[in-house]
């Protein structure tokens, strides 16, 4: 009977790997599974958009302006007679893309900063962590707006800026993990075997520090989608005529007295998507560390 067995009695069968245990726990969380389902559905819809809807997102139809929802136009039409449902499906492409690219950037920057700060400590740590403190002082939304003011609005800039202003949380998480990991025996062992810093950091420490990052990434995607929609709503994100959930809502605001459907559906779409990512994030967290929710 090893120590491990006494800690994890149900792990004695040997066949269930750690990953399998995580998956089992995750699967038991109905909300998280529902979240995954919704996200997959959204991806499928946005990829297969031309198959789902007979309309084109940019077709202007002066005879069918601001029609309420009907069998022909499920979510009604906008001020230029475009089908709102179609525009929302195409808009989903942008929202999903923004979430992934922005968070990808944030995770890469945050992970590298956190690894360096935690592993080397001393001056490297002080300087990098002061940088984190400084970045956290700026109201993020102000910083994003200011950068966009300097550049031409483009969806790629938006993704990069959301990423570049959103890595600080990840950096702190990773640093905290690394601080405890670098004192562990397996790091000592790797060092004794003559492994380089680079190898120790990326082969031994990084894989062990990734689980909190996964949670934070999932929640980050939700945040990035919210930010993009707010920017597009304010007219500095996705530029018309390209559809995005945020900029459909801009029209919704202008026509709020005549066309409630322009405001209701895109907002609901954002809500459901963000909610799904949050549920998945929480699900991963509970699966990785059930202690938190007991």
């Amino acid at each position, binding site marked *: 009977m090893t120590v491990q067995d006494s800690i994890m009695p149900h792990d004695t069968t040997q066949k269930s790997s750690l990953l399998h245990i995580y998956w089992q726990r995750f699967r038991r969380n109905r909300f998280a599974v529902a979240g995954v389902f919704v996200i997959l559905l959204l991806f499928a819809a946005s990829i297969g958009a031309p198959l789902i809807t007979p309309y084109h997102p940019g077709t202007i139809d002066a005879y069918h302006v601001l029609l309420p929802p009907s069998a022909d136009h499920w979510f009604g039409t906008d001020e230029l007679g475009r089908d709102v449902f179609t525009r929302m499906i195409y808009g989903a492409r942008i929202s999903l893309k923004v979430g992934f690219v922005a968070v990808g950037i944030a995770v890469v920057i945050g992970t590298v900063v956190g690894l360096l700060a935690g592993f080397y400590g001393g001056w490297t740590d002080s300087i990098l962590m002061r940088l984190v403190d*400084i970045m*956290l*002082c700026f109201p993020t939304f102000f910083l994003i707006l200011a950068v966009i*003011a300097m550049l031409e609005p483009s969806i790629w800039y938006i993704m990069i800026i959301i990423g570049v202003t959103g890595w600080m949380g990840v950096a702190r998480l990773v640093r905290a993990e690394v601080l405890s990991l670098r004192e562990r025996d397996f790091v000592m062992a790797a060092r004794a075997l003559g492994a380089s810093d680079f190898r120790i950091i990326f082969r031994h420490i990084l894989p062990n520090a990734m689980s909190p990052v996964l949670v934070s990434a999932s929640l980050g995607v939700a945040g990035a989608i919210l930010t993009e929609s707010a920017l597009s709503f304010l007219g*500095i994100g996705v530029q018309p005529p390209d559809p995005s959930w945020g900029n459909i809502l801009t029209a919704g605001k202008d026509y709020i007295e005549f066309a409630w459907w322009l405001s209701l559906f895109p907002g609901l779409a954002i*809500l459901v998507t*963000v*909610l799904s990512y949050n549920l998945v994030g929480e699900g991963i967290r509970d699966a990785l560390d059930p202690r938190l929710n007991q």
Partner: protein
Amino acid sequence: MVTYLLRRILTLVPLLIGITLITFTVIHLAPGAPVEMQLDMNPKVSAESRERLRKFYGLDKPLHVQYVAWLGKLAKLDFGQSFAPDNRPVLDKIKERIPVTLRLNIIALILEFALAIPIGVYAATHRDTLADKGITIFVFIGFAVPTFWLALLLMYLFGVKLGWLPISGLQSLGYEKLSWWGQLWDQAKHLVMPIGVATFGSLAGLSRYMRSNMLEVIRQDYITTARAKGLSERVVIYRHALRNALLPVITLLGFSLPALIGGSVIFETIFAIPGMGQLFYQGVMARDYPLVMGILVIGAFLTLVGNLVADVCYALADPRIRHGQK
């Protein structure tokens, strides 16, 4: 305590320098110098203001000289003049907007804490009951609702459909003619929706945080001790547990400031409230560089002060911090 305070204030210096450096970098992100290429193509900026900008930043000089010169001006609180047609000093423009935004945000902050703390405590002490589950669902939806969308829905419901509340501005027409009470009532009616939206925006996060803090504290040995002593549940929860659960919330107070200020761009723009957020948005749209830089620096500075105040409060509340025990 004094040493703690001094040490804490000293750490502000590098942060301040960093803030100005980043702001300076942002303004120089535009391809070429901030004036040259970008503004040549931008008809919104006149030749006159281009010349003024060039002179203000000394753009003929190398970058580090420009930075130091700008820093010197900042130290004298000289943020330059706005590019807008009124041409007024940026500082004056910001000064008249700050009270509006601060008042709104402070009311929202107070409401948020007044609601979130009881919600969180209730959820934690009634764990896994129907009420706790209801609160959890509310929290998750609160996290996911885009605030600008919520603002739109409220405007539609209370402004357009029911006609109970005004949908924009801070005062009605003929405000001056109203009695003192009338003015107060009028202001209150204008503020209900913006403050409601601002509060709701961070309510979910804070109550969730409060709930998990409380759950963490209830597990501690001193709570078991208190219960074992035979203290009533009320005393255990409100005197022993709550105090300790509130400690980390103080830090959060400082952190929620940038989010609130940043969020004010959205609801001030939607509800047409003449605050800093709206001014900033207008500055961004008009490429009013001095204004954008000025607000960015001041916004970050306000956050810094907020964090400092939060830290000092934390030190006052928690002797472990005050005496430098790690």
